[in-house]
């Protein structure tokens, strides 16, 4: 028997868990401003997460999907994308979204049960959060198809989790993107857990990156807690896609340091020792160590940053808490550009009974 195909999956890491350089750094890593900006965004995400969880615990927010542990991947993807690219997120990639102009108030408004949070003032063409798992990936393929048809040098980026890669939609989207060489990048955030099911039970594949290969799409694995490495591979994938080279799967290996959502209790299924070990690899500390080694960061800057982030978050909390609550007409608005006449009777009933009874 002859071999007709072979594969290998590369792994990129440039900054180890101790903040030590362990590979050839890309040019942006020598730019103090760019590196500081990424670190600052990571800290903002971490503090925002803590605040949002607290808001949920005190009854001021609905179920919330935390991002703690994922900050390097999310921020690096945001930094590598261009504003004119389009993001199809899952529901916890705040670092990418904030980088692209989604506001903290919009994020809180959404998780407070109010779809107005999806009406981003900044990235107008980005998709809103996507709750049905994996179903955002065909959207990215479709957006990329529109870019191809119109010959626009833009890219679509879809996120998906390790669990999401089990969905047929993911493979269908990859298959199309490969067959049509679409300008798309699929970022698999492997955080180890799909709610309570560990990645090892999700698939027999050694990596999630190789799930692209069966669909003719190359894949690469990267340390998802290494902001420099993620931005580098993301940049390469976007450059390739923009240049007509087709799609890429990037598997960012990270860890969900939080519960799946605030409605979840990971201690029911996840060994404490595993979580403890994962904290030793978390992304913020190593980034700060790198910045400190370069002479770009110190305790005073850290204190100032945290104060600034806290103030920014407080303003956002004020923003969503002081919003005018949606009235019943809200349900009937924006269903159609040309609403059918039949809906008016139901709207009249809704108006008559108003907001309903509290349970």
């Amino acid at each position: 028997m002859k071999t007709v195909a072979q594969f290998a999956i590369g792994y990129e890491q440039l900054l180890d868990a101790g903040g030590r350089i362990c590979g050839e750094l890309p040019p942006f890593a020598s730019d103090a401003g760019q590196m500081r900006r990424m670190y600052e965004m990571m800290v903002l995400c971490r503090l925002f997460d803590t605040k949002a969880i607290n808001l949920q615990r005190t009854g001021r927010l609905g179920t919330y999907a935390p991002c703690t542990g994922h900050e390097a991947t999310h921020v690096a993807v945001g930094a590598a994308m261009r504003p004119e690219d389009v993001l199809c997120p899952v529901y916890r990639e705040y670092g990418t979204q904030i980088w692209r102009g989604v506001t903290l108030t919009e994020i809180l408004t959404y998780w407070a049960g109010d779809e107005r949070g999806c009406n981003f003032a900044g990235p107008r063409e980005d998709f809103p959060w996507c709750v049905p798992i994996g179903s955002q990936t065909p959207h990215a393929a479709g957006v990329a198809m529109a870019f191809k048809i119109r010959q626009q040098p833009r890219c679509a980026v879809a996120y998906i989790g390790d669990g999401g890669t089990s969905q047929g939609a993911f493979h269908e989207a990859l298959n199309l993107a490969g067959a049509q060489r679409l300008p798309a990048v699929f970022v698999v955030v492997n955080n180890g857990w799909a709610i309570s099911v560990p990645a090892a039970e999700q698939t027999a594949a050694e990596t999630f990156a190789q799930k692209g290969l069966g669909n003719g799409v190359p894949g690469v694995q990267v340390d998802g807690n290494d902001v420099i490495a993620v931005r580098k591979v993301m940049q390469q994938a976007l450059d390739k896609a923009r240049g007509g080279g087709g799609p890429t799967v990037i598997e960012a290996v990270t860890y969900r340091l939080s519960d799946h959502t605030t409605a979840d209790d990971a201690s029911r299924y996840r060994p404490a020792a595993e979580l403890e070990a994962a904290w030793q690899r978390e992304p913020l500390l190593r980034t700060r160590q790198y910045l400190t080694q370069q002479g770009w960061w110190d305790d005073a800057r850290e204190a100032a940053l945290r104060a600034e982030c806290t103030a920014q978050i407080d303003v956002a909390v004020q923003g969503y808490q002081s919003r005018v609550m949606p009235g019943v007409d809200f349900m009937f608005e924006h269903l159609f550009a040309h609403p059918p006449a039949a809906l008016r009777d139901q709207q009249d009933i809704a108006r008559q009974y108003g907001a309903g009874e509290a349970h």
Partner: protein
Amino acid sequence: MPRVTLVEGINLALARALSDDPDVVLIGEDIGVNGGVFRATLGLQQRFGKLRVQDTPLAEGLIAGMAVGMASQGLRTVAEIQFMGFLYPALDQIANHMARLRNRTRGRLCCPVVIRMPHGGGIHAPEHHSESLEVLLCHHAGLRVVCPSSPARAYGLLLAAIREPDPVMFLEPTRLYRLAKQDVVDDGKALALDAAVVLREGDDVTLVTWGAMVHDTLRAAEQLMQEKISCEVIDLSSLSPIDHDTILESVSHTGRLVIVHEAARNIGLGAEIAATVAEKALYDLLAPIVRVTGYDTVMPYFALERAYIPSVARIADAARQTLQDSP
């Protein structure tokens, strides 16, 4: 003025839309060189190129999902699902995303998508090729569901559907594709999407139906005329939203209502129409409402499909029954 079949009327409308608007793009399985399994897209790829008339991989969920992405960028995407029995994998995208994107982004993004699909049986097709699944679509807010009954209506309704900024599910009655020819003016004029049409005026009983059943119902009305039973026949045309006003107006005149559909009876559209007439016009009724529908069985393989699809005799008997049941 060309005399065309229903499928040729669809082809004319697609060609017109592609010519008029560079943002119109067609996607689907075998719609390119092959022109679609029913030839609805015949010759269009040659005229408009492989990017605007595009063969997709064989995955209905993908077709609906990529349509959402393309439409979010402003492409008026017309997707073909080869047979309605293959709609199921696409429902996740249609219900969770296509129907909701405008609402959940508060109008920021929308889905100008048309999904065309054959509807109903009667052409001796394989299993899963003959279903009438309109209720699966009608139940979802944010969608329009349309079903033409003639070549001219197919042409005008499809143009309207493509120009609509929201998703329209366009059900094409399979056994009408080549049943009869009609003069169709290729003038680019669209028909109203949300309106039912009175195809035949009458005084004794209102017959409401849509799609291929329109023809059997008209034949029943013709037969009944010889018994001096005068039927008003309404082509519902818009399955969602339903034009209840046209039905109510007719029932207030005739006092009797028969609803005819090929889809199964249980929770079919007939139930919705009957409930609305009961709520709004019970005292106009001279007799109980009768439904003539497919049975609550699996849509049988073709050896028995004619036993499943309501016949002219069943429709006529139902109309007679409403006269016997009333004073």
